[in-house]
């Protein structure tokens, strides 16, 4: 599928805005919040692959993100491993665990899968909390180094870190774009529509679902690794399922099963919650009903809504074109008959 010129222009504008943001931001706190939103958006993009495109609700996603974060934390703080190596490993470790969890859980039907992943997520949380010799338990991991310089570019300042995170987010989106536009992406969507039908079309269910699952956990792990280098301290609570619920909300608001939806949702909700800080406790009370209303009346999310309108217009345009051609043909035939 070709990306229309209009979309490309829009993307260029968005990228420009993102690049210019630190200059327009009032202070470094805003830059910090935005960077964190990007990291959460990255994680949500990963979750969207298994949830939005393949149709499986994996409630352990936050657990895998924690695995990635702790991989970086433990390796850098306890074993002096260089940050970038630890970061690369965060994706590998999360992906490996994801593979193990995937081959067991993806044989399960819908509801069982969701509950199973809920339990897997909780096991990950318990392991992080109880295995003190490895994870420091409830004390947490503190003093994680910031990402070290790559050549002349250092990442000590919030602005530098902002751009680092932005680069990773763009790279993550670009890879995801490749995946979902390809035949593989179509296979994922086929599974979401109907597993039986996908199988009848030659899709190897287990292999494809596990691939989607592993990819999503790699994204989660890398997001976690970024988080560790950015926030610089970790506690077991980052593995709690409430964070997965948060990511699900980002995805729903922005547009489930769309490429940019998760990021848009992360940005919108992060800034909305920020601006409603004064409401404190009432923020959380609104969250739940918002999820319910979203899922009842606006399940396709912001980008989903835009996409639908666009597809409808394209279908209308195609129909109008066809009618005009048919009319022209009728006219021509009429003329031919008259002239004959």
């Amino acid at each position: 599928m070709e990306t229309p010129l209009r979309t490309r222009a829009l993307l260029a504008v968005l990228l420009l805005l993102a690049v210019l943001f630190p200059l327009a931001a009032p202070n470094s706190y805003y830059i910090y919040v935005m960077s964190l939103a990007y990291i959460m958006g990255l994680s949500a993009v990963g979750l969207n692959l298994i949830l939005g495109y393949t149709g499986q609700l994996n409630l352990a996603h936050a657990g895998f993100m924690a695995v990635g974060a702790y991989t970086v934390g433990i390796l850098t703080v306890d074993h002096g491993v260089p940050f970038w190596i630890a970061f690369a490993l965060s994706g590998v470790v999360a992906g490996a665990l994801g593979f193990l969890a995937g081959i067991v859980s993806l044989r399960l039907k819908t509801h069982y899968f969701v509950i199973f992943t809920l339990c897997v997520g909780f096991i990950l949380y318990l392991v992080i909390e109880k295995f003190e010799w490895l994870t420091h338990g409830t004390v947490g991991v503190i003093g994680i180094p910031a990402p070290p310089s790559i050549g002349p570019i250092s990442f000590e300042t919030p602005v530098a870190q902002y751009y680092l995170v932005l680069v990773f987010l763009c790279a993550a989106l670009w890879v995801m774009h490749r995946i979902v536009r390809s035949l593989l992406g179509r296979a994922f969507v086929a599974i979401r529509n109907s597993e039986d039908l996908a199988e009848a079309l030659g899709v190897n269910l287990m292999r494809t679902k596990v691939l989607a699952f592993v990819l999503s956990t790699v994204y989660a792990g890398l997001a976690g690794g970024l988080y560790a280098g950015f926030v610089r301290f970790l506690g077991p609570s980052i593995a709690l399922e409430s964070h997965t619920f948060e990511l699900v909300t980002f995805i729903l608001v922005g547009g489930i099963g769309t490429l940019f939806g998760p990021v848009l949702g992360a940005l919108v909700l992060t800034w909305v919650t920020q601006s409603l800080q004064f409401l404190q406790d009432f923020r959380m009370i609104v969250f739940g009903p918002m999820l319910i209303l979203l899922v009842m009346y606006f399940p396709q999310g912001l980008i989903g809504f835009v996409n639908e309108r666009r597809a409808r217009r394209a279908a209308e345009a195609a129909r109008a074109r066809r009618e005009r051609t048919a009319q022209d043909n009728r006219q021509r035939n009429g003329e031919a008959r008259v002239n004959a």
Partner: protein
Amino acid sequence: MNIFFQQLLNGLTLGSVYSLVALGLTLVYGILHIPNFAHGALYMVGAYISFYVVGSLGGNYWVAMAASAAAVAVLAVLSERLVFHRLRNAPPLHDMIAAIGLLLFLEAVIQAIWGADFRRLSSPYPQIVRAFDLTAPAQRLMIIAAAFGLMIGLHLFLKRTILGSTIIAMAQNREGAALVGIDATRVSMLTFAISGALAAVAATLFAPINLIYPSMGHLVIMKAFVIIILGGMGSIPGAIVGAMVIGFAESFGAFYISTDYKDIIAFALLVLILSVRPQGLFTRGVR
């Protein structure tokens, strides 16, 4: 010997509480085929209402339990009418997300009112019972007795009353039940009400020997899910048997292996069993 008996009693106590929670969950699943993630929140709200009645209103423990059961039953019915009923034609994913939304909402409300601190509900029976060289805290005996009493009552209700049989009919064959004139709406509401009441009673029974806090429902609900998957979703005997198994496994595991990891036992069991039998222990797979 006494120590072994203590663990046995512990296991029975845990199992009893778990079975009440699991029963409510499995009843709802049998009718609606959705895993109600908000069930843990109903459990938690039940505990807080009892705490409020006893603590702030000075009520009697049993009155508090009755009030709590009634209130949570109403809450459960409201959730069915306002949320699940509206989503009955949506893909299953939406049901689950809505249930999660409910869960978050209830927790947030409770936390806004009572804060996140731990609360205590004092036991109405703090005595220790002694017999045959064995000791047993009266509260635990009471929990076991009350739970079994309720389960027998539920069994009689489902099997011996017409209202109860409508629930079974609808769980077995929704369309068939509608054809013979069973009102699906009424049955759904009734089932939800029962499940809510069971959760509230379980929470009130368990509260005196545990703490009350906003996220107390998380662990319990996950174990309840493990139980109904192992016992077969929609199966009542399965829920009870599964609950007892988990209760005993936890009790003995906590004592003889380690208290720290006792919570993992239920989930480790789930991972183990589902790895070998993806359809669960007691369900007949279609494949």
